[in-house]
């Protein structure tokens, strides 16, 4: 009994003297107070929350050896063994900031990213498609960003003094060979891919990752969408055609498939909108595309593919004889397949594997015709006889790619990968009188690459990479180092710098080379960027210097690659400002580019400013949605100073010289689009409709992209857009799901 009494007494003592006071201050390693952190005695209810000065104070009834913990998100957790015996405990705790995606600096030198991921990006994927001048073309929207040129006479992206072929486009890591419709003389061909196939877009105007190569100037990296939200059906009707499609999501939401058919015919549009060319074959385009996506254990398998046929034929005035006409027709068949598999394979490793295969066939027919549109065969005149030709181009392209990524602590990562690319292109030319010329170019290009993301703190990050390539055509290796660093300032603005070497093989049209021992063309990029972003405003500016070496020089009747004696440079400054705040309900951005570039390549007689580079370019893009009218209004204005143009002729000893040159007038263009959503907000409506009106060159400003020269006579004709302006009217109906937003975005 005595035993029990003393036990009871002991307990009482413990309770009576058991209260312990714990106080202190919590800071980070830079002595900054941490507010809102939880201070806890482990496995007890006792604890408190730090105040704005990081101070904490609480009492506990726990006794003996205990664990004191401090926790606040974004910082390493803290724990310490303490002895609770009624004596006040004073603790000053300092904990380290963790490197987290929400806080860490992002390397942005040279790159514009559009995505809907959480981290604030300059653009969202919706922006890519709601730009008035874009007309549903991804690259159209990119042309309102700094670094790009307003080249309208041919398709493609011309970036920082580079040619269109110096920009490469990748979908889920795989190179896309015929991203743009086959080129037609004097017309900028559009991109083939619907912008809403993609959830993420990275447009790099230089200094891009070692995961990509064979582009001296720029890489456009697109990431395709995952499973759709719901099953739906879509119908489109417009002045240029009709289409229908279905997206079916499996009941378990683990897989989906989709099928779409589109028919485009410009007959109606061309009857209403006067064309500058005489179209004897109205442009017609048919496309069937399909996709499937399957969710796997820790990833996804995605397929997208299409078959596309198109046909066009038109006459223009012949430049060498004003009484005659040139007829041009193009039939194209393009087939594309892309299969991609992304998976988490455990222990922080991820695999990304891709396969792509595509074929392209262009059947081109050119004819010299008289005023009655009858074919003329002037066999004795070499200049005019060359204007009759049948050309058949066939291409096959295949790629296999594997990237392994290991995620390490604190956002650090390592990526390793390899890539094999195969292409075979055939060229069949049949001239007047059955004269034939054929050729083929086969390429096998293998690449291996490694890259690491390296975070020293939330404020400093680096990306270091190397790419190794071997081209069968060049029969030699190249090694391309890439490096970029970024630093975040106290006010959350950041500076980044990128450097890299980039190599490229010649375009197949300059092959086979006239001489052996041809090397890669090479560019070195140096980019310095400053960026300040808040959720409603973005300011960024970049200065860059790009040095070209070993550019290809060409010679001969067909302008084949001769040597690597070409060279050049591009330097400039670019500014981008986006503001959703200053004017209520108006979102606008302004971009400005200054470009100083000269080069000597292909048939240039010396170093000069190329015809695809304007010195000053500026764009203003505005977007406003008026909820009351259920209508969105989008406008964009683009200005560029005139570009130089040249006529390069060969003298008697086959040396190139400039026979004539000039500069085009300045380029001005105002685009406008409007979308009306009558069913907006009617939650019970089964079908959603969007009506779209878009007008290019609203003010009818005179636009000249360059000049075509007569071969012999002193005559030049301006290269003009196909029509003064273009008006597009369309109606889009989605059944089964409110895809109003998609539909607007799709068709602006």
């Amino acid at each position: 009994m005595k035993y029990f009494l003393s036990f009871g007494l002991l307990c009482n003592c413990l309770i009576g003297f058991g209260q312990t006071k714990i106080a202190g201050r919590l800071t980070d390693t830079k002595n900054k107070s941490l507010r809102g952190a939880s201070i806890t005695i482990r496995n007890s209810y006792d604890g408190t929350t730090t105040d704005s000065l990081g101070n904490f104070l609480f009492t506990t009834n726990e006794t003996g050896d205990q664990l004191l913990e401090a926790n606040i998100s974004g910082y390493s957790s803290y724990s310490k063994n303490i002895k609770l015996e009624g004596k006040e405990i004073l603790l000053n705790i300092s904990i380290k900031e963790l490197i987290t995606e929400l806080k860490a600096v992002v390397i942005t030198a040279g790159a514009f990213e559009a995505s809907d991921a959480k981290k604030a990006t300059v653009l969202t994927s919706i922006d890519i498609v709601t730009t008035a001048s874009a007309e549903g073309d991804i690259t159209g929207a990119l042309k309102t960003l700094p670094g790009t040129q307003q080249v309208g006479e041919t398709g493609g992206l011309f970036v920082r003094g580079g040619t269109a072929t110096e920009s490469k486009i990748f979908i889920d890591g795989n190179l896309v060979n015929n991203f743009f419709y086959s080129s037609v003389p004097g017309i900028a061909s559009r991109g083939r891919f619907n912008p809403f196939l993609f959830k993420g877009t990275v447009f790099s105007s230089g200094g891009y990752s070692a995961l990509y190569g064979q582009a001296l100037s720029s890489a456009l990296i697109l990431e395709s969408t995952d499973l759709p939200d719901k099953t739906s059906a879509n119908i489109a009707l417009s002045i240029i055609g009709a289409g229908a499609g279905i997206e079916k999501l499996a009941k378990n939401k683990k897989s989906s498939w989709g099928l779409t058919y589109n028919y485009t015919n410009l007959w109606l549009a061309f009857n209403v909108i006067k064309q500058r060319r005489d179209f004897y074959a109205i442009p017609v385009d048919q496309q069937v595309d399909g996709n499937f996506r399957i969710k796997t254990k820790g990833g996804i398998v995605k397929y997208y593919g299409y078959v596309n046929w198109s046909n066009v034929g038109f006459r223009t005035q012949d430049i060498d004889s004003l009484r005659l006409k040139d007829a041009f027709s193009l039939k194209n068949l393009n087939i594309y397949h892309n299969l991609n598999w992304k998976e988490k394979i455990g222990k922080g490793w991820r695999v990304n594997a891709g396969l792509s295969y595509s074929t392209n066939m262009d059947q081109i027919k050119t004819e010299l015709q008289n005023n009655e549109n009858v074919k003329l065969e002037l066999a004795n005149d070499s200049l005019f006889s060359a204007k009759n030709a049948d050309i058949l181009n066939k291409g096959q392209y295949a790629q296999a790619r594997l990237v392994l990524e290991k995620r390490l602590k604190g956002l650090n990562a390592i990526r390793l990968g390899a890539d094999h690319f195969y292409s075979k292109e055939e060229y069949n030319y049949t001239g007047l009188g059955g004269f034939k010329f054929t050729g083929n170019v086969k390429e096998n290009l293998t690449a291996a690459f490694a890259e690491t993301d390296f975070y020293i703190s939330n404020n400093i990050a680096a990306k270091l990479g190397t790419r190794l390539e071997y081209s069968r055509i060049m029969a030699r290796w190249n090694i391309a180092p890439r490096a970029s660093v970024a630093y975040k300032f106290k006010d959350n603005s950041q500076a980044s710098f990128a450097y890299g070497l980039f190599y490229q093989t010649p375009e197949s049209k300059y092959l086979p080379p006239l001489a052996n021992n041809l090397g890669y063309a090479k560019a070195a990029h140096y980019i310095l960027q400053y960026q300040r972003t808040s959720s409603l405003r973005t300011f960024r500016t970049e200065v860059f210097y790009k040095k070209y070496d070993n550019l290809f020089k060409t010679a001969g009747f067909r302008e084949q690659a001769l040597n690597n004696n070409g060279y050049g440079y591009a330097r400039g400054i670019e500014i981008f400002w986006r503001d959703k705040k200053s004017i209520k309900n108006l979102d606008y951005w302004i971009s400005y580019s200054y470009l100083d570039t000269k080069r000597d390549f292909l048939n240039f007689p010396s170093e000069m400013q190329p015809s695809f580079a304007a010195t000053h370019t500026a764009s203003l893009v505005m977007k406003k949605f008026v909820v009351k009218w259920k209508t969105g209004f989008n406008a964009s204005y683009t200005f560029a100073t005139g570009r130089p143009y040249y006529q390069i002729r060969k003298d008697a000893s086959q040396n190139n010289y400039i026979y004539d040159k000039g500069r085009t007038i300045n380029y001005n263009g105002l685009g406008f689009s409007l979308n009306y959503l009558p069913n907006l907000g009617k939650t019970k409506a089964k079908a959603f409709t969007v009506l779209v009106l878009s007008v290019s060159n609203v003010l009818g400003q005179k636009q000249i992209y360059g000049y075509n020269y007569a071969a012999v006579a002193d005559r030049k004709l301006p290269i003009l857009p196909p029509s003064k302006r273009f008006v597009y009217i369309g109606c889009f109906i989605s059944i089964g799901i409110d895809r109003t937003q998609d539909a607007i975005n799709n068709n602006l």
Partner: protein
Amino acid sequence: MKKLLLLITFIAFNNFLFAQSDKYAGAMQKNIALLDSAMKNRSMTELANNFTRIADAEKTQWLPYYYAAYCTVMSGFVETDKSKTDGIADRAEELIIKAETLAGKPNSEIHVIRSMIASAHMMVDPQARWQQYGAASSENIASAKELDPTNPRPVYLEGQAKFYTPEAFGGGKAPAKELFEKAIVMFAAFKPQSALDPTWGMASTEYFLAQCK
């Protein structure tokens, strides 16, 4: 003597257990009672920490994690620095995942919090995020209603969403008012499963209903 000792030990142990659950209920009730004042005093983070401590110590109760998630997401709604909102919403998400794991299966109240987390993410940039997070928010409201048709909180949240949606998008005061009125009736009839189960929302519904007039 041996028997007596056993008996005492048994009683003591029982007492201990009883005291333990009493302590849990007491601590929970004390903190639940602070919910309204914490919202006014902007001390939701503190309250979230209190609930997290209880949750971590108890290890088997889903309700303290549930309340911790609720307090965290509410602190996200009142956060004026929008660059912090995503981080707070992510923290709430972590807590609600723990609650769901302990609850064993998703329930109506957990979907209510998930809907609020999606709305918090959406608020950072409504125009750009409406499509993704707006859909996630309303899907969770639908699931919450399905799992417990008597729960007034999803109806209140639906009313709130309508309240902030422009009329042209099918929102506005008129449709919101209908839902708030319906929620008030449901609040009056709602019977929580235990004294600790959530009952919040009545006062806010009344506040919004007053705004609709």
